Each structure stands twice: as structure tokens, then as C-alpha cells.
């Protein structure tokens, strides 16, 4: 149970010990204390999720349900976004490449940027909005209406039943959604290339994948598992630890989206740095 030391108590303690503390230094000590407690809480939560993932009694039915929720129900949004990203990237890049007489590089350039960066990051950001918020709001409202407590008194471990299937499903489904978005992005790019030119589909695909090597694909694909993990973990953590009032449901959903989006960008930064160092 979290215990916060009231500022007044800290001040009287400081006075007794003849320690000169200003209001600002007290406030910052309290916020640092709060930050460290929250950080420890996050790591404890992640530890509990890992322990329950690898212990007996995986909730397979719930996992499949979550795969359907995360994967199938995001297909429409990911399809539209993937197609448009490929299309826009092609339309924007074409004039520059034409100036350099390098228009034949267009398919491979778009394919590489889609596979390495645009596909995974854009898909992850969309999923951070859609999946992160839905997990935050759903679990938050379950917390507010005592459904999580009801599960506990029914001898059901809520981490095992609610959190583990969501985290595992998102970690598996987001890489698949990224592959799907990449494929539709390339399709959109072919459509974009045909607006001002006439390119055969087979030729476009041959050119697109002519320059793509295995190592363009693998590091980018691996990082998508981490995207899925952080998005679901943030959504579940925020929802599971939501406060008591109905307002906290909105707060949980909102902070899940903000934190998940930020973490996606940070994970991407680390992934790119590590890939750069290794290759």
C-alpha cells in the first residue's frame, strides 16, 4: 500500500532536526519520492505479468478473444492508413526523384522506408491510440465498478485472466498488423506511381523488392514485438491501477494513449540505435 508522507510532517521533522528546507525543495523531494514509488510500482506490475505468463493455466480462450479484438477489429483502420501512407509517400517523393533522373528508384525507396520505419511506427502509433485507450478504459471501468475485485473473490487471478491474454495477444498481433500495413503501403505506392506514370504491378514489385535485403526487414520486424508489448502493458497498467471515480476511467484511457505513443517513439529510437551499432 502506498504511503505518502504529508509535507507538514516532513516540515516539522526538518524543524526538529534543524534542517533548513524551503517549500520548493520539499515539493521536489515529494515529487521525486512519488516518481520513484510509481516507477517501482510499474516494475512490480511487469514482474507480476511475466510471472503469471509463464506459470500454469494460460487463459487460451481469453487470448483468442483478445487476438480477435486487437487484430481483426483493427484491420479496417490499418488498411486505410497503410494504403494512404504508401500513396502519399510516392506522390511526395516522385517530383524530387524525377529532378535527379532517379524515378526508377521510387519503388525500392518507398518499400525500404515502409518496411524499416513508416509501416511499423505508424501502425504502432495507431494501435497505441486504438488498443491502448480501449484497454485503459475497459480495465479502468472494471476497476471502478469493482469487477476486478469480484474476480479476485471468485478465486480468479485478474492478472492472469485480464492482463496476460491482452499483453500476449498485442505482442503477437501488432507485428502481423505491421506486415499487413507494409503490404498495403506498397499497394498504395503502386497506385501512386500510376497516377503520373504507367507501371506494371509485377515490374513495380520486382523493383520495390530488388533493393530490400533481409536485414532491412528483420530488425524492423523484431521491434514491432516490443511495440505490441509496451502498448498493451501501458494500457493494462493504467486501466488496472485506475482510481475510484468515473473520472479516473477517462484519465486512464488518456494517459495510456499518451504514454504508449511516447514509448513507441522511444523504443523506435533505441531499436534504430541498436540496429545501427550491430550492422
Amino acid at each position, binding site marked *: *500500500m*502506498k*504511503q*505518502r508522507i*504529508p509535507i507538514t*510532517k516532513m516540515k516539522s521533522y526538518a524543524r526538529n532536526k534543524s534542517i533548513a528546507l524551503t517549500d520548493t525543495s520539499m515539493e521536489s523531494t515529494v515529487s521525486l519520492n512519488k516518481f520513484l514509488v510509481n516507477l517501482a510500482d510499474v516494475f512490480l506490475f511487469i514482474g507480476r505479468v511475466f510471472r503469471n505468463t509463464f506459470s500454469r493455466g494460460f487463459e487460451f480462450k481469453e487470448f483468442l478473444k483478445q487476438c480477435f479484438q486487437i487484430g481483426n477489429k483493427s484491420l479496417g483502420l490499418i488498411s486505410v492508413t497503410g494504403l494512404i501512407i504508401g500513396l502519399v509517400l510516392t506522390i511526395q517523393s516522385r517530383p524530387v526523384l524525377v529532378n535527379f533522373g532517379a524515378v526508377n528508384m521510387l519503388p525500392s525507396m518507398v518499400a525500404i522506408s515502409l518496411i524499416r520505419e513508416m509501416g511499423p511506427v505508424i501502425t504502432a502509433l495507431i494501435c497505441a491510440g486504438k488498443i491502448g485507450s480501449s484497454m485503459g478504459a*475497459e480495465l479502468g*471501468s*472494471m476497476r471502478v*465498478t*469493482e*469487477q476486478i*475485485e*469480484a474476480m*479476485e*473473490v*471468485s*478465486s*480468479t487471478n485478474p492478472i492472469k485472466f485480464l492482463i496476460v491474454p491482452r499483453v500476449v495477444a498485442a505482442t503477437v498481433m501488432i507485428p502481423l498488423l505491421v506486415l499487413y500495413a507494409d503490404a498495403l503501403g506498397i499497394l498504395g505506392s503502386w497506385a501512386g506511381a500510376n497516377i503520373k506514370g504507367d507501371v506494371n504491378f509485377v515490374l513495380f514489385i520486382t523493383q520495390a523488392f530488388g533493393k530490400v535485403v533481409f536485414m532491412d526487414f528483420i530488425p524492423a520486424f523484431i521491434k514491432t514485438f516490443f511495440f505490441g508489448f509496451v502498448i498493451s502493458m501501458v494500457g493494462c497498467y493504467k486501466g488496472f491501477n485506475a482510481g475510484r471515480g468515473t473520472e479516473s476511467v477517462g484519465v486512464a484511457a488518456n494517459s495510456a494513449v499518451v504514454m504508449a505513443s511516447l514509448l513507441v517513439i522511444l523504443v523506435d529510437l533505441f531499436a534504430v540505435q541498436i540496429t545501427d551499432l550491430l550492422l
Partner: protein
Amino acid sequence: MSTENKNTEDVIDIKDLKISFGGNEVLKGVSLQLKKEENLVVLGKSGTGKSVLIKCIVRLLKADSGTIEVLGDEVNGAKREELEETRKKIGFLFQSGALYDSMTVKENLEFPLRRIKKDLSEEEISQKVNEVLENVGLPDAIDKMPSELSGGMRKRISLARTIIVDPAIMLYDEPTTGLDPVTSNEISMLINDIQEKYKTASIIITHDIECVRTVADRIIMLKEGEVYKEGSLAEFESDSDPYISSFFKSQSLKNQK
């Protein structure tokens, strides 16, 4: 009464229970015993720690000190596996009902049954679901979603979900709050019916004096985290203490209006 006899009679034995939140002491050494097949009402103003008390019994909240024995098993210091075994013997009716929104009534009722009584066949599960729905008077609600139910119906289904695993002890957290007087009375009668049919011992947290009059075998009043008075309904109603009589008087005034 000998100590041995007393222990077999008490299904819950709480001694010197203390819990505080951020320096605010909510329970300051509460002791109480719940006897077999008894309806014990815990009365008190909001914020006196009534809900905290019953949440400590199922260890949704961990007490800072004191002991809680449920059917002879210590709860406060129990390991997770031991705690789960004890929880199987307790039914907890939440204030909000706490029905799972994403599941139908049938799935809500099957949820604890499949997890607590794992050896039941599909036929037995279905039979048990129908039986408890009959007992709470809502056999037609089986395929409904919780959002399609009224407040009273949600409470009844929630009660059905609690009794489906045949608990030895029932804990009711404000069972009639937010309901109209007629439905409140029906829920109070249902609590008595369940006690008679399933031979449960119950702790009922409530502010509703009509509910107290209907269900109470014994009453404990909490004030500022401590037991203020313990006794029968008649003793409470005839008590001239201003704090106690304010509960019963205010209700009488309402009735007079």
C-alpha cells in the same frame, strides 16, 4: 460456553483489526464474531470503515494488524493458495453489483462456478445456473447483458452469482443502496430466503434501517473505526444514546412523512 464450543460456533472471528490509509486510521482495533447461520448487521455512518472491514475479511485489503479467522483459517497472514481456498467459502455481494459487463447473465453466473467447482459437468453447470436464477426470481434474464438490466435486477443477478458456489458465509456490501423501497424490501427478503435455504452466515453492511429490521439477528454499530455498540434490534431501538437513536429516529421521521 467453553472455548472449544465457542470456536465451533464462530464462523468468523476478528480480533483487534487495525488498518490505516496514508496516516488515517480507519479501523482502530475492531473485534467481532459471526456465528453459524446468523445475520449480523454492521451499521454506522459513511466513512466509519464498514466496507473496509468486510474487504479485509476476503483480503481485498490487507489489515495492518489483528487476526481474521474464517472457518478456522487465518486470512490476514495467509499465502495466496490458502487465501484462495478460504475465498471459495465466502460469497461477496458488491455495492455496485460488479457484474462483468462483457458477459451475458449466463456467462456471469458460470464464471465463478467453472473456476471454483471445476469437476462439474456442462449439464450440472446449466442446472445450477437455472436453479439460482429461479431462486432470485429472474429465470428469463439468462441471455441478457448486464446493461439491459435494471438496478434491482442487477443486484439479484449479482446475488445469484454469489450463491451459485454454495458459500458458507455471505458478505453484503450495502445490498439495498440506490434501490427504490419496494425493491429494497424484496432484496432484504431475498437475503433472508438465502440464509434459510443455503444455511449461510452473513455480514450485512447497510444504512437502510428497514433492511436492518428485516434481516438482523444481531447488530454491531461502528463509530470512528471502533465498535460502538453490539446488541439485538430491540436493544438498539430502545437505546436513548443520541448517536444510535439518530439512525432509527431519522428513518421513523421519514416514515411519518
